[in-house]
């Protein structure tokens, strides 16, 4: 049997330290491999080693054979010639992978023309066809900054596959997408092996693995934990790590206790009446009402672009609503409404140690530093982490530090804008668990914005669906 891709004892080293491997797998046409594991487990290193895009400080060992040719022994320039024509890559952050100054259509048609070797007219015709198939009609003239995450992912897909490469490498293809777009991207990927291609997908999402099926490799800290058919591994995992990945899927979360009798026992902390919000002059929705009580957990669910973030900003008093009112309980200052952001690194100054940021907030609000440290301890953050800069801690740690920062002010309401959508499933579950515990202990209300109904159902006392 001739495999389209054959990997034998592949490992990636930084100097003498092994970061990933050894792993082996074979895939023939129509095959699917899913590589699973947390961020930092070395999943992306496999893709980079196959492609030949490892940073200079790293090197790979082992054999990689593509269509019968030993890729690992090829010169770099020869490997690069395979890009787009033999191996296509779907990038992790589609927004950042598209040229910000070039319109969507041209980014795809140039690949048809230069990589596919088609004449301009044919390249344009094929691009138009791809836009139609992918549901991108109307987006031809758009620039990447005006595309939604899902659209950008599909444009990148169209551009990556224009050269008709039989092997597709997809690195975290569903990261940050809402439930509906998530499904669409997975459907798109599932088509690749059906049409005779070979798919290698990297993900930390169990639901993606389940849908793509095929073979699965589970990595932890770069080491192989488990390998086998996806159906078997997901049904009967042999390692506890795989089990914990499966448990972290929101579908499998235990149900949090629903607090139902709040109305009698707790004070109202925030009242929203008849709120309407708009973004760049366009009204997003109106007539939004909400009464929040201390300690309550409310989930706001809705697809991307519906205005969830704008709504939170209005509730936080950061923007002026189009209509309606947001009222805090009389005894509360405006600091008692705090916000958590979706992208933790963007919520911290990049070049300043975390300790300074937290100390500044504590000093400004006359909060005792030791109480901040206590909060951090409860959130499982070791104080030594605070000497680092935001990009030197993990996303989950940073989000927990930003929770601690918000709690420094002693909030009554915490508005959390998809605080875990960029985190690993295990970290996501842990972070939300902690948020639940803290809310109960400190008696503050949480409004959690999420696009995942499973999370809303399992975690919140009640769910408001925005349509």
């Amino acid at each position, binding site marked *: 049997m001739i495999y389209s891709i054959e990997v034998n004892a592949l490992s990636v080293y930084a100097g003498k330290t092994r970061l990933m491997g050894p792993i082996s797998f074979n895939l023939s046409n129509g095959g699917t491999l899913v590589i699973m594991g947390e961020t930092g487990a070395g999943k992306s290193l496999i893709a980079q080693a196959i*492609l030949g*895009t490892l940073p200079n400080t790293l090197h790979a060992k082992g054999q990689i054979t593509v269509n019968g040719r030993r890729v690992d022994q090829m010169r770099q320039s020869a490997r*690069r010639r395979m*890009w*787009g*024509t033999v191996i*296509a*890559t779907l*990038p992790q*952050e589609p927004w*950042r*992978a*598209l*040229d*910000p*100054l*070039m*319109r969507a259509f041209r980014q795809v048609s*140039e*690949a048809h023309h*230069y*990589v596919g070797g088609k004449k301009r007219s044919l390249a344009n015709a094929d691009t138009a066809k791809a836009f139609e198939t992918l549901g991108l009609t109307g987006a031809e003239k758009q*620039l990447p*900054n*005006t595309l939604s995450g899902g659209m950008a992912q599909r444009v*990148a897909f169209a*551009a*990556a596959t*224009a*050269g008709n*490469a039989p092997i597709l490498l997809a690195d975290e293809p569903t990261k940050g997408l809402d439930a509906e777009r998530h499904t669409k991207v997975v459907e798109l990927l599932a088509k690749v092996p059906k049409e005779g291609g070979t798919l290698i997908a990297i993900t930390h999402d169990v639901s993606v693995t389940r849908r793509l099926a095929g073979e699965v490799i589970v990595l932890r800290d770069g080491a192989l934990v488990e390998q086998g058919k996806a159906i078997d591994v997901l049904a009967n995992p042999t390692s506890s790590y795989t089990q914990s990945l499966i448990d972290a899927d929101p579908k499998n979360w235990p149900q949090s206790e629903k607090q139902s009798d709040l109305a009698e026992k707790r004070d109202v902390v925030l009242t929203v009446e008849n709120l309407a919000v708009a973004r760049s002059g366009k009204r997003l929705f109106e007539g939004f009402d909400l009464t929040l009580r201390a300690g309550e957990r409310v989930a706001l669910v809705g697809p991307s672009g519906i205005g969830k973030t704008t709504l939170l900003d209005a509730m936080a008093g950061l923007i002026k609503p189009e209509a309606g009112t947001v009222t805090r309980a009389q005894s509360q200052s405006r600091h008692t409404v705090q916000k958590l952001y979706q992208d933790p690194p963007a919520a911290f100054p990049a070049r300043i140690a975390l300790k300074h940021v937290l100390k500044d907030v504590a000093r400004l609000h006359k909060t005792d530093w030791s109480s901040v440290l206590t909060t951090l301890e409860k959130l499982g953050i070791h104080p030594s982490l605070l000497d680092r800069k935001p990009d030197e801690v993990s996303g989950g740690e940073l989000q927990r530090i930003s929770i601690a920062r918000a709690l420094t002010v002693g909030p009554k309401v915490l508005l959390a804008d998809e605080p875990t959508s960029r985190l690993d499933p295990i970290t996501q579950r842990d972070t939300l668990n902690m948020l639940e515990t803290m809310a109960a202990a400190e008696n503050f209300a949480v409004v959690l914005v999420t696009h995942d109904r499973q999370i809303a159902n399992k975690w919140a006392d009640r769910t408001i669906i925005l349509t």
Partner: protein
Amino acid sequence: MTSALMKTVFAALAKRALQALIVAVVVGIVSFAMMQALPGDAAYRIAAGRYGYDMMDAAAADAVRLELGLDQPAILQLWIWLKALAQFDLGTSLVYGTPVIDEISTQLGYSLLLAGGAIVASLLIALPVGIAAGLNPNGIVDRVTFGLSVLFRAIPAFALGIVLVLIFAVQLGLFPVAGFHGPENLVLPSLTLGLGLAAVSNRVLRDSVVDAMRADWRLFSRTKGLSARLTLTRHVLRNAALPVVAYIGVQLAYLIEGVVIVETVFAWPGIGHALVHAIFGRDIAMVQGTALTLGLLYVALNLCVDLACRGIDPRGRLA
């Protein structure tokens, strides 16, 4: 041209037109006030300029004062100038008696030639240097050009001009020292200004090339199959050019200031040279006229930069 592009062009034009109006009034008032603040009797200086120091006396100065209305209150003189300006009349040179507009229109051409030459020279230096340094950050080219950039930015334009004259004109005899007799005269003054401009813009370009080469979209362009050359020409250069072109706008202040100094050093028959002479001669009308023209030139060049940026970057265009 698409209608979206037309709209953005008109938006830029309208903004700059308003700016030009404000610049005209402010420059007129400020230059007038500064001339008033200069010590000495303007009428004496003007009479000296007209007849020569040996041929003038107090009577001649008084005659000049009366003729030009220098005895009138300053505020009235300013008002007369502004009123004439509103009718696009810059008045006549107090020393030569010729219309200021005639003087400036010949000088402006020379100054624009010099400014253009300086920008071309700076790009000829900055583009290859910045790209070479950016493609190999912290390499030998990067480090050497960084040192040279600091050096050239630190040297004032007049000193650099004199050094260049000493080397290329006096020692090597490659180019004429000063004046304007032909294109060969353009080289040294353009180079003087161009080196100062390139000293900073090559670093801006270097940084934007480094950013572009590290960008996810550059790697994706490669992995989707485009060659290194195509990725460079179709994606990297356009993205890297944007900050550089925008930065030229920032550098215009240096350029205009440099034109005044470098023209004086090289006896270049341009508007900056005329401005310096007019100040010494207390030729108020000429000072106001030249300062105004330089101010408007600044606005006009900024408009060009604006339009170039909008041409490169489609993001700001209204859909």
